[in-house]
């Protein structure tokens, strides 16, 4: 719990006043003025230049809940393989409606154990919304009719291993369900070894007159291939480790042994098509927990799953076998292009064509099986090193070490030092630390967290929002009247993606009339212009819904569009029209007569 001592705590609302007064006392004399866009005096103090372990994630959630009981709720979606809670932080204005009925954005991070900063970005989002809700009208309005389900890590076991054990920036990727990676009948028997006991897994190199590498003239810590005509001096022996099981191979069977982002039940493929997919889709408890959560929250209309690295705003499909529906691609494109503005250095691309082919990935399950507009941001990009796309001699590692030298003062690198290896003999061990290369350095962490949050909040804002715009009543004689209503979706995202419509994933939107008794009900299409007109403009076509006419079923209300319905009713008195959408929220309007 080293990390916890880093921030000022508040655990109970009863103490809130006193502690926040204490915070005022201690800080006010120092003359604090909140910078634009930052909480003025946050009730929960969290330092955003570091990474939090499982206990700290739960603690931050608990403190947010205690300090903001009407905005934040901590719950568990289930247990991981090793029994850790998979925390969900629900953020919404609980005084304004049931959060599980509002259009919702789902955000998770850290599906790959080593891709850690998504967790902090998710936590930052929860913290920021809680601390800003009473200060920023835009956020208060957002939380009045939207919900965010924030899952800081969907791989708590792998995260804990990554943070607490010696590791590299790339290990482990897997979770901790035991698997026999090398098929020799023994499980997890030969992982990485922190030979020099410094808490880091770095590289091993050995002097070799026949080696292929030399020290870089610009950056002597780095080995580069010997130029043509020049003799090498070093050979690279790989990541720090020994042949633990004596089978002649080094580090061939570390913990786990699968890819949690290939385990999802949409276009899942066996190992010879998709490595790491494990025995069957949903074989991992963490996958099953997320699926159960999403299936039981049909109000989720948008999602973000944070990965690293490379600076990408990814959308599916992951495999060339799928093609996203054109109507949906338009929506993705509009969101993604705004994302590129919010996130300089990030490119909005498609997984299979822009990155690589992924079968059975999480974002494809979200879209394919549930019809949810989903992005995966690949956090951190070398663009951030010197805020230029170029690198020294086209070499990322050289540029990164220059950055380490000039801006981090060599904190990212463990200097090479001699070591006597039981199998390789005299070698040297050294190299970059696990927190460098794929995650932001501390001074950029909050900035990148904020930008990524801003993209998700933009998406949250653009989730569908249905509104009964106008109601008109026209007498038809004989005690009958015609009631016409126009219902708008005022945001970019439709109430149903085309994937959802075609596969009938979510229920239709309902537009209901209450008050007078309904004789007949119709959906009105055509007429041009999508609403605003009354009295039947040319080209309008009314299609009767014979069954249950007081509740008209609408398959979809597209983004920034309206639908028109009408009823023939008998009797007088006020008329109330209610629009009710699983992903678009609900809204009512009444007119008197």
């Amino acid at each position, binding site marked *: 719990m080293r990390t916890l001592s880093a921030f000022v705590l508040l655990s109970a609302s009863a103490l809130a006043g006193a502690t926040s007064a204490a915070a005022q006392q201690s800080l006010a004399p120092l003359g604090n003025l909140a910078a634009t866009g930052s909480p003025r005096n946050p009730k929960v103090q969290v330092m955003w230049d570091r990474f939090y372990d499982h206990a700290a994630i739960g603690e931050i959630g608990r403190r947010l809940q205690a300090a903001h009981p009407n905005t934040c709720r901590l719950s568990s979606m289930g247990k991981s393989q090793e029994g850790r809670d998979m925390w969900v932080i629900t953020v919404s204005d609980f005084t304004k409606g049931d959060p599980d009925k509002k259009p919702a954005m789902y955000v998770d991070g850290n599906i790959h154990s080593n891709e850690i900063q998504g967790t902090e970005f998710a936590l930052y989002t929860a913290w920021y919304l809680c601390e800003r809700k009473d200060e920023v009208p835009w956020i208060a309005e957002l939380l009045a009719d939207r919900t965010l389900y924030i899952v800081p890590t969907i791989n708590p076991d792998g995260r804990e291993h990554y943070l607490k054990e010696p590791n590299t920036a790339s290990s482990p990727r897997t979770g901790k369900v035991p698997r026999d990676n090398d098929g020799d009948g023994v499980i997890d028997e030969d992982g990485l070894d922190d030979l020099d006991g410094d808490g880091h897994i770095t590289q091993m190199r050995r002097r070799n007159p026949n080696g292929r590498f030399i020290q870089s003239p610009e950056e002597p810590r780095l080995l580069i291939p010997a130029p043509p005509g020049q003799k090498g001096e070093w050979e690279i022996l790989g990541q720090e480790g020994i042949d633990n099981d004596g089978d*002649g191979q080094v580090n061939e069977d570390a913990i786990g042994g699968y890819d949690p982002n290939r385990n999802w*039940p949409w*276009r899942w493929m066996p190992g*010879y098509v998709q490595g790491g997919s494990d025995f069957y*889709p949903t074989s991992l408890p963490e996958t099953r927990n997320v699926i159960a959560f999403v299936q039981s929250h049909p109000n989720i209309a948008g999602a973000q799953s944070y990965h690293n690295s490379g600076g990408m705003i990814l959308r599916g499909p992951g495999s060339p076998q799928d093609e996203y529906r054109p109507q949906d691609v338009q929506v993705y494109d509009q969101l993604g292009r705004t994302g590129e503005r919010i996130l300089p250095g990030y490119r909005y691309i498609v997984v299979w064509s822009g990155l690589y082919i992924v079968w059975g990935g999480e974002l494809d399950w979200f879209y394919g099986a549930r019809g949810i507009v989903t992005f995966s941001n690949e956090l951190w990009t070398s663009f951030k090193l010197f805020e230029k796309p170029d690198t020294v001699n086209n070499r990322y590692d050289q540029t990164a070490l220059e950055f380490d030298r000039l801006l981090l003062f060599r904190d990212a690198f463990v200097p090479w030092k001699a070591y006597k290896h039981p199998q390789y003999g005299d070698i040297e061990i050294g190299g970059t630390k696990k927190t460098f290369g794929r995650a932001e350095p501390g001074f950029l962490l909050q900035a990148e967290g904020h930008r990524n949050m801003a993209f998700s909040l933009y998406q949250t804002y653009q989730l569908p929002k249905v509104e009964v715009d106008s109601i008109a009543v026209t007498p038809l004689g004989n005690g009958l009247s015609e009631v016409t209503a126009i219902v708008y979706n005022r945001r970019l995202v439709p109430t149903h993606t085309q994937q959802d419509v075609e596969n009938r994933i979510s*229920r*239709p939107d309902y537009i209901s009339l209450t008050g007078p008794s309904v004789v007949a009900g119709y959906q009105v299409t055509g007429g041009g212009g999508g609403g605003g007109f009354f009295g039947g403009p040319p080209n309008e076509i009314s299609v009767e819904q014979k069954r249950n006419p007081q509740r008209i079923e609408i398959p979809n209300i597209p983004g920034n569009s309206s639908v028109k319905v009408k009823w023939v009713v008998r009797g007088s008195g006020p008329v109330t029209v209610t629009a009710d959408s699983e992903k678009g929220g609900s809204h009512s309007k009444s007119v008197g007569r």
Partner: protein
Amino acid sequence: MSRSSFTDWRLAFYFALSFCVVIASSTSGQSVRETPYRAHAALTQNLQSLAGANGPRAQLVTVATSPGGRAIQALRIGAGADAASRPALLVVANASGPHIVGSEIALVTAERLLSGYGKDSTITRLLDQRTIWFIPRLNPDAAEALFRGPRQERTANDAPWDDDRDQATNEDGPDDLNADGVITMLRIEDPTGEWMVDPTDPSLLRRADPAKGERGKYILVREGKDDDGDERLNEDGLGGTDINKNFTFSHPHLGAEAGMHPFSSPEARGLVEFVMAHPEIAAVYVIGPQDNTARPWTFRAGTGIAGAATGTSAGGPLQSIARPDEPTYADFSRRFLRTTGVTRTPTDVPNGGDVLSWFYYDFGRWSIGSRGWWVPEAPRDTSAAGRTAGGGGAPGGGAAGAGADLIADERNAFRWARARQPDAFVPWTKVTIPGETRNLEVGGWKPGALLNPPAGGELDSTLARQQRFIAELAGLLPKVAMAEPTVETIGAGVYRITADLVNQGGMPTTSSIGQRLGNPRRIRLELTVGSHTMLSGRKVELIGPLAAGGSLRRTWTVVAPAGTSITLKAESPTTGSVTRTITLR
């Protein structure tokens, strides 16, 4: 879904699966034992008493519990201390709900093998050396629909499912309009109908062919009415997931009865967790609609997505078995034909997400599937009308040319049933539904039927054939053996060790797909030399596949004092294990 497409879908389904024969003559769905088949309670009881009576040679475990609360059980049979760990055959039946003959085959085979132990020398030898697991009923919820009134063919389990997405669940299933205890078909006289009475066999209906000037007279649907007043018939009955569509290979994502996603059903997930916990299962025999016995799976050359090779990341899923596995499937087929005396089998019923394909393509096991039983060829009709209609037809003939008899299979079944099961076909009789003015008639095949033989000779010979083949398959399981290794002295204290590894089984140690998957794992060959020096050879090597009867030679050079003992071990769950202690001298 429009009414007509719904009707088509349901009919396609009906005719694909249910060229059925009646199980028994009955008027009530609640009668106990009118059929030779067993409802869940009876099957469970039989399995329990079988396990109880056969002590250590039989063990019963629960694999999963269905949404209807029914336990899916697996029975292990085999004698000897290593019965639980040596290579095993798994027999899986009744993943497809109405296919209950599979349950009977599995149970009776287990029963007969156990009772023959100690009496019949062949059976005794088999059970002393081999282990067989039986899962007689993987889809007990759906199977139960054939035993409880009104009896009907159902493929999906009891998971609540809103088929028509109207926020109501199971609100409009089939109805027993003529109160005869079974759900058959309803024909509605309607000018928009596409079906007409077959001129040759007036009990049967076929699609009218407008090109021949024919006009349809009937709409044909499953027996039922519009229970919820939504102008659709039987669109949301009891039933969630068809277990035989809930596996990954070619899974019909979001398709009818396919489940929320592959392995969303407790039955499918229970099965995969069971086989993961039993890596010794080397081969699987699946009794169900998919059949690769008389028509073995073959390799087909072809390319996948964008011209890339199938079975790769870029090319996507495999579209046929791997070429190296073709001879093994051909061999299974030859054996099946020889052992059972069968000369042909019906056309395979394509079915995305089925358990048979999954076991091979996605789980790497030798996977052999049989229908178990199908309607035999009826005596040829020599009448003039019969000749016109193509005589007895060609049941399961598959490739139908232009002008072929489109209901040849059903025509054959009808003639077969007339001779052997006269009550299998319910004659069309008028029924009424309040508010419905059109002429309505209920009739057609009783549920269960063309999939499951009636009691008597057909069933008895089916059980005997299938028992023979299951026993044969168990005898073919891979088995690793090693002759005494040879030791040669190269120089003082330097020894060359040579060992031959043999697969004594009748099938390769793994399939080529299994090798690519790393599942089942290959044979681990390990020479343990302690602190001595190995000059050549590998300490640990993963080996295979070894063909049936195939062998492999390995050589090591070791430096050690004379008289040193070292051990050489070859093992894998699906091949068993063999250890040799070698003294260097």
